[in-house]
């Protein structure tokens, strides 16, 4: 009898607790694309945020990267989507114009404070007097290298300049008896990060400026662009230290230990750490012939959609404030390996001299951010440029000019 009464009381009490919780809780939805480390980091952030704000529940939904943009674009206008959404910086224009995201309130996010605290590239997110969205993290490129292969070839350290890069790559390349390449000195593929390396780094290092008029006019069809392309294609054609399409994807070759060096973004750190048996190091991108350093930086931003109103809006603002806090940025750095968007977090002694994150963070100081009209379209044009020479044997200059014409047409259609 006693047991039954206890059970009944316990049931009543837990039911009451459940209902009390449900009555006060505001549920907001957060969307991002699926990438193991990003999802893990966001789960941690949501847990911390919910602990500090017990009346708010955040539900995260994620999609494969390939479908992400379509799903977001289809869901928000239909009123089905998230309250807080993660977008690529290059998509912001389209979302602002379509009135799908709302400005961040200036009392919680004063522009003067943002301009003081964040890296300057974030200012591209400002529209009028308010910021539309803010990043938790930014990313840049660096040169990964396989320490085991370096030791095996008797190489002291990673290259500092492009010339050293070629020399070291030669020592790392292996071929079978028939001359087929079985290990590349450096990976190559415009489909991965190389199109950023070529556009924002190599073209500048050979003395050019890839675009003019705020990225609305193509300018790489110049002497510098020609030399940059000659260097890039030369890795495979003249020096024979790489092969396009080797092992299907550049990062696959590096992970499998079949590539000595590999240029990739900071987001790759997490997945390389999980690769068993791979001993790797990372260093800043090599300097150009005249010592010029450059890098490419991009970022994903979080914004509040127009779907969020009333108490959901207030909850979304609180959540935004948390995911752009110093604490969130440090967690994001530790879990995903993406760099803090504020110098106050990024440029700490520990972070800037970190063996792994240091090269990326130092790269931010001289990084450029391409303002894409259509990133995949513009990448495709550079990919085709390389393939026309590599597969069809088109002269280098002609291919470069053809790419410039195609990209200018794409930019004109977007901006006019």
């Amino acid at each position, binding site marked *: 009898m006693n047991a039954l009464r206890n059970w009944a009381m316990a049931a009543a009490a837990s039911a009451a607790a459940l209902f009390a919780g449900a009555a006060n809780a505001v549920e907001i939805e957060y969307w991002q694309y699926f990438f193991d480390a990003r999802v893990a980091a966001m789960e941690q952030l949501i847990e911390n945020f919910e602990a500090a704000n017990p009346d708010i529940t955040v539900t995260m939904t994620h999609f494969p990267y390939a479908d992400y*943009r379509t799903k977001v674009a289809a869901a928000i206008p239909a009123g089905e989507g998230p309250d807080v959404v993660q977008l690529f910086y290059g998509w912001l224009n389209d979302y602002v114009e*379509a009135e799908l995201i709302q400005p961040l309130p200036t009392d919680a996010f004063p522009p003067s404070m943002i301009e003081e605290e964040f890296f300057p590239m974030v200012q591209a997110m400002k529209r009028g007097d308010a910021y539309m969205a803010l990043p938790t993290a930014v990313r840049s490129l660096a040169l990964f290298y396989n320490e085991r292969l370096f030791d095996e070839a008797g190489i002291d350290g990673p290259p500092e300049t492009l010339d050293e890069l070629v020399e070291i790559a030669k020592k790392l390349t292996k071929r*079978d008896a028939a001359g*087929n390449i079985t290990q590349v000195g450096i990976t190559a593929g415009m*489909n991965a990060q190389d199109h950023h390396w070529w556009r924002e780094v190599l073209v500048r290092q050979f003395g050019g400026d890839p675009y003019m008029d705020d990225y609305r006019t193509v300018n790489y069809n110049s002497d510098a662009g020609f030399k940059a392309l000659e260097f890039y294609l030369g890795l495979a054609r003249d020096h024979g230290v790489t092969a396009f399409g080797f*092992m299907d994807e550049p990062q696959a070759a590096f992970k499998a230990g079949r590539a000595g060096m590999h240029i990739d973004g900071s987001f790759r750190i997490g997945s390389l750490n999980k690769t068993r048996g791979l001993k790797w190091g990372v260093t800043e991108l090599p300097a150009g012939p005249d010592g010029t350093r450059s890098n490419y930086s991009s970022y994903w931003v979080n914004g509040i959609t127009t779907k969020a109103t009333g108490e959901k809006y207030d909850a979304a603002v609180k959540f935004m404030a948390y995911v752009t806090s110093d604490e969130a940025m440090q967690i994001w750095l530790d879990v995903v390996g993406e760099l803090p968007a504020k110098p106050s977090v990024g440029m700490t002694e520990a972070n800037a001299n970190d063996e792994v994150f240091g090269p990326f963070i130092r790269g931010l100081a001289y990084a450029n951010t391409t303002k894409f009209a259509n990133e*995949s379209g513009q990448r495709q044009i550079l990919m085709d440029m390389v393939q026309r020479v590599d597969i069809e044997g088109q002269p280098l200059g002609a291919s470069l000019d053809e790419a410039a014409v195609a990209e200018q047409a794409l930019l004109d259609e977007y901006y006019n």
Partner: protein
Amino acid sequence: MGFYKNLSIRQKQIVWAWAFLALPVVFYVVIRFYPTGNAVLISFQDWNLLGDRTWAGAENYLKLWHDPVFWKVFRNTFAYLIIGTPVSLVISFVIAYHLDKLRFMHGFLRMLYFLPFMTSAVAMAWVWRWFYQPVPIGLFNNFLAAVGIPQIEFLRSTTNALPAILAPAVWAGLGFQVIIFMAGLRAIPKSYYEAARIDGVPWWTVLFEITIPLLKPTIVFIVVFSSIGFLRIFDHVFNMTTNDPGGPLNSTKPLVLMIYQSAFTDFDMGYAAAQTVVLFLILLLVSLLQLRILRDR
């Protein structure tokens, strides 16, 4: 209710027939005809999926006409059709013809041929993609290298890539066609063959005068069915070339993949819809043409 009572039995039957037909009719209108009509509408508009739709007139169609990529893709699409359909037809007929005569392990062999048809196209495309890689990971090239023959660039070539992608697509569809052919062969009355044997005609006469003419309805079905399949090819191409969809240099891109890219990487819905309308017209034309050519006189 009084209205229903006054109907004759025949009229009541009609009412009931329509009551049952209503479900598929509504389904078709909502799921098929409404989106089709909407696609035609969007093809005359400008829409990036996010903002408002604005009228663009025939602009999308003009852009299509002047787009060199579209004409390249148009040729590719017909290359898939013109190579794929006859090759798969001949192979599947030869297999069905011989399998039909075989008693030993008949069921097992039929299962082996049918298996690829049941396999996921995505999984199959990825396995073939790895087969085609250069040394050190590609099966075919490793074999060539082992016997001292120079490597073949299967997928990184503007000439070899399309046939390389078509091969697994043909293989995947074979099982279905073999089964249909075998059903067609079984449906031919035995008496014709018996008469032929009594007359003592050679096997090729039997084949060309009895078997193939009587298989005509089966052949028409398979030709139409596989033509539509090859005109709509997508999964194999997309999955074997995800690094550069439809590449290299658009040499493997079929129309459906171009539609997909216009819609979901360029977010140019109007342009994608215009291509869809063109694809619809091509499919309609090809099907009508084939039905007419292969129709019984």
